[in-house]
């Protein structure tokens, strides 16, 4: 089968799965298993497409449908960049659906007819977004994705918070989409086509002839993509919408949906800017937006006590890292291709890594929610013993997101920060941004130590009986955690393909994978023939394993015992739950220092001017007075109807005389 056929099969399978799960909606678990089977089948087809796109058997563009009047055609092409994101989406989709099989059973009052079918259409829309090469149909898929995710976010019908969050999400992202519509139309006016290639050519030409208009278009596109990606301040929808969605959907939102904003940025900005004179300016702008996001997002996350909200803020932060890498890459690619490619590759790698660990973290938070009904970390604690798999996966993912070696978060952050620091030699701003990113990694670690400490460690609440989540939910988490380890220990393996994706999307030749990233067992950044930085995860991981065995051996050899004692509360008697070190007690100085970093702006809707309202009410000042006038005139005329025959006769005579007089006057 050709690539378009495979994609058509994947989308048809997803839609068929939507229909099947709609029919089975009354039987929650069965609907879940059926959906998982369909998603898995579609994911298999997509993986074939991905493998094919990265192999030499890549195929050209295929046109399905054309609208000649608009210069739009539904054409499909899978290049390595699309394939890279397709791989992320296919993986996350399977895991999130599998997880939902048992998770969704605990929503009693809500029918699953509005979960699985919409979820599967949502995945189909994402596939559409990634494969079409025409902006009009891109927008159609993009908004289909938004509207399906809106219904998934507002799944809990009676929860006012989820309704508000869903509304905010849909309206903000719809506004962003309209910005993209304007941008596309301006370019379409120049070239009469919506094809990506034509639009980019028109934009490049516009940059040369009318730079102001071109930068406006770029700004509109940036707003469109960055809003979806969750870059602040447009990403303000994200901390509201992620927590209220069912956890499988939160994972899909953070793992897949926000990545598409990054996809759009790479597809347009990465493909156009590096070769143009505007590269440095826009590169710095994107990097600054990213740094602002990672700074504000992560420090705000530090203040949160709602586990899923905290993770949503970290999504903003991690997207900030990706944008930082992207910005540095775009700015440097022309002058220093190796450095720029390194930054872009690091950014894309971080996108994949973020999908793994953030999805895992949301699933972990969901697992805790499933068993305890709590998202408030102040009321949780001591779950590690009862939920070992969840606790273990969440720990791995937490360390990964914080960038602890040898996990995957470290590898990608290492690339991004290395690129920032090296680019800082020429452009000191990037040095500062890189240092900020490094400092914020620490804040991320602190934030997740809080999560691990408050949720999994400490004394369990004896009144609450908690057990490990069902196998499907545990499996989903363990798979993602294993991916975090795997991608971290063997970073060169995925990075080889990511280099291909980056190379396919930028207009400047990118060095080969081994030139760019060093050997197969580690990473090396070289500059001017000398190795500038090295990262050997296997050595570090091996060393850590050896050290762990040594420590364990020493402990055994020394016969050091462990003793467990209750928390000492000065002799007072307290329940374990009340003397726990609660989540809100962490990092108070930080919270005070950065209290106003995420301001809540209250919009005041301006009152509608009363004068204008009266002017619009044409009835009041025109029609009703006119009608009354007519009525009064009719009344005046009717007064002549006195009901006396003699008077009427008199009128007739007078009238006859008048007529005769007029006729005589005219004739004479």
């Amino acid at each position, binding site marked *: 089968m050709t690539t378009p056929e495979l994609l058509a099969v994947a989308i048809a399978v997803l839609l068929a799965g939507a229909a099947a799960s709609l029919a089975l909606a009354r039987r929650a678990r069965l609907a879940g298993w059926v959906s998982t089977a369909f998603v898995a089948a579609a994911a298999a087809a997509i993986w074939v497409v991905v493998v094919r796109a990265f192999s030499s058997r890549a195929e050209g563009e295929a046109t399905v449908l054309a609208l000649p*009047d608009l210069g739009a055609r539904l054409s499909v092409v899978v290049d390595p960049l699309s394939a890279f994101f397709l791989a992320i989406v296919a993986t996350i989709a399977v895991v999130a659906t599998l997880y939902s099989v048992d998770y969704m059973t605990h929503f009693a009052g809500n029918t699953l007819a509005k979960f699985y079918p919409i979820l599967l259409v949502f995945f189909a829309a994402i596939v559409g977004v990634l494969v079409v090469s025409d902006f009009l149909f891109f927008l159609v898929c993009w908004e289909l994705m938004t509207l399906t995710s809106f219904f998934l976010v507002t799944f809990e*019908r009676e929860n006012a918070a989820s309704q508000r969050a869903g*509304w905010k999400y849909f309206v903000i992202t719809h506004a962003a989409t309209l910005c993209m519509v*304007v941008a596309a139309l301006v370019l379409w006016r120049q070239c009469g086509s919506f094809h990506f290639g034509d639009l980019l050519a028109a934009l490049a030409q516009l940059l040369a002839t009318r730079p102001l208009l071109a930068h406006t278009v770029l700004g509109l596109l940036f707003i469109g993509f960055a809003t979806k990606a969750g870059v602040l301040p447009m990403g303000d929808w994200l901390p509201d919408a992620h927590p209220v969605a069912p956890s499988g959907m939160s994972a899909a939102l953070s793992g897949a949906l926000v990545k598409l904003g990054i996809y759009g940025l790479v597809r347009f900005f990465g493909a156009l800017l590096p070769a143009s004179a505007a590269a440095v300016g826009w590169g710095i702008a994107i990097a600054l937006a990213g740094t602002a996001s990672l700074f504000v997002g992560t420090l705000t996350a530090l203040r949160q006590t709602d586990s899923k909200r905290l993770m949503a803020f970290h999504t903003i932060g991690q997207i900030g890292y990706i944008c930082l890498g992207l910005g540095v890459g775009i700015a440097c690619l022309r002058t220093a291709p190796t450095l720029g490619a390194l930054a872009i590759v690091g950014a894309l790698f971080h996108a994949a890594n973020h999908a793994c660990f953030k999805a895992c973290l949301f699933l972990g938070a969901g697992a805790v929610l499933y068993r305890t009904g709590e998202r408030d970390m102040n009321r949780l604690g001591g779950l590690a013993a009862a939920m070992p798999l969840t606790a273990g996966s969440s720990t791995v993912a937490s360390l990964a997101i914080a960038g602890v070696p040898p996990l995957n978060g470290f590898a990608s952050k290492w690339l991004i920060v290395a690129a920032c620091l090296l680019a800082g030699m020429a452009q000191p701003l990037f040095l500062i941004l890189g240092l900020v990113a490094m400092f914020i990694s620490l804040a991320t670690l602190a934030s997740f130590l809080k999560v691990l400490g408050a949720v999994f460690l400490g004394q369990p609440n004896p009144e609450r009986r908690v057990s490990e989540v069902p196998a499907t939910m545990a499996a989903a988490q363990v798979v993602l955690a294993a991916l975090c380890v795997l991608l971290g220990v063997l970073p060169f393996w995925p990075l080889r393909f990511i280099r291909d994706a980056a190379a396919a999307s930028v207009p400047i030749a990118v060095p080969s994978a081994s030139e760019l990233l060093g050997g197969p067992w580690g990473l090396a950044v070289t500059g001017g023939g000398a190795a500038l930085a090295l990262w050997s995860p296997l050595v570090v991981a091996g060393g850590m394993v050896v050290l762990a065995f040594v420590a364990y051996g020493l402990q055994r050899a020394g016969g050091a015992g462990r003793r467990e004692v209750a928390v000492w509360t000065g002799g007072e008697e307290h329940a374990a739950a009340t003397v726990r070190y609660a989540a809100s007690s962490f990092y108070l100085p930080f919270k005070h220092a950065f209290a106003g970093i995420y301001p809540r702006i209250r919009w005041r809707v301006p009152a509608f001017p009363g004068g204008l309202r009266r002017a*619009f009410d044409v009835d009041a000042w025109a*029609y009703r007075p006119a009608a009354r006038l007519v009525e009064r005139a009719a009344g005046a005329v009717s007064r002549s109807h006195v009901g006396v025959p003699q008077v009427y006769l008199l009128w007739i005579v007078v009238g006859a005389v008048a007529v005769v007089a007029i006729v005589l006057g005219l004739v004479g």
Partner: protein
Amino acid sequence: MLSWMLVLMVLLPALAAAVAAVVKGAFARWVAATAAAVVAVLAVWCCLAGYGVSYRVTLGDLPFLAGTASAPVPGVLLDPLGCILLLVVTVIGFLTVLYSTRYLSAANREHPEGPAGQGRYYFWLLLFLASMVGVAISPNFLQLFIFWEMTTVCSWALISYYGTPRSLAAGFKALVMTGAGGLFFLGAICVLFVKTGSFEFAALGQLPGDWRAAVLVMLLIAAWAKAAQVPFHTWLPDAMAAPTPISAYLHAAAMVKAGVYLMARVVVANPEVPPAVAMLAGAMALVTIFVALSYYFIQDDLKRLLAYSTIANLGYVMLGVALGALGSVTALRGAALHILCHGFGKAALFLCVGAVAYVTGSRSISALAGVARTMPLTATAFFVGVLAVAGVPPFGSFWSKFMIVAGAMRLAGAIGPVVVTLVLFESLISFAWLLHVAQKVFLGETTPVACVNSDPPPAMSAALVVLMLGCLVAPAFGIPLVQWIGR
């Protein structure tokens, strides 16, 4: 063959109307449903048979005009633009009749209705269907005008159907305002006939410059009155006193479309419209869009909110037509497509409101909440309708609105970007508000008013399902069809 089918589509509902008026009680609705179904099937067949061509036949001649008028008057015309209106009128007309068969019943908690008065209802409804088909297939101004005024009368009778003082006043107001607009139409026809000796649409092009502008402005005033555009926008919200299926059909999908259809017809037949008139039409359309928007936020009655949304969307069609008159054929096609797509979306919304009122007895935004719990199908249809009317892809209005704004972009100078910005701004605000209202009414905690049993009866639900599908697939057959307009 085709011509007689077209004539049959006018005569059949008119005949059925007469039958429905005299037969007893429940039988009337079966007569009406059958006739409407046959007409809908015929209309689809005709549109397929006459796909992409302009089919025109003269049927006899009027003796008193023989020799005076340069072309015979009675005839039929089926072209892509007429097909669009014909499909809207007949398909949604059938669904409305189907819906009405259950809506007008004793089980209706808003307006319990015995079988007694129903013959009158179906008489006017079918007569309206016949006259609307007549509007869609009229080949000249005179014939169009006759059917046009017939729709006005039907509208008056149906708005006043319940006979309450409010509905009587609303019906009278609608009659006076649209009737006054009709006088301008008549004036335009008189001038045209005196100056050119013809009632043809294309005869406008033979008028000398100043007269042409005057006639066009008179036609424009007639269209504004019919389509409830500023400054004649005040009758439509009051007309919501009509039974809800009537509001869905006459005052959202069909009759008000006659106004914009007239202007589209004029522009299709006469590409050379004086720019000043086109600018006037476009400017008033923009004013209408924003005036209607300004009323959204103070409505509590769902039907009145939808009425203002209808006014705004008719403004969109008018805008597209005006841009078409300025030379952008894409916008003109978008306007024609919007007639179709908006018809499906808005009819779905109105029929949902009717279903909610049927089951709960209320259509107040503040009193209703959490209706989706017991009426999932209605809630789905309402959300689909909101997304369709607001222009969220992949639903219908996205494509039509997109074609209108893209058409605006085609024009030279600053008009395009300004129009696009204004239109998209309105689009966003109205989308946000409609979504908010949909969430308020259908989601959240269920209020006592909304504690009801279930979705409406199957006939009403079926109409909702078909309209939902229509919202999704309308562009699929609408876009190829409108490509033939303006060739």
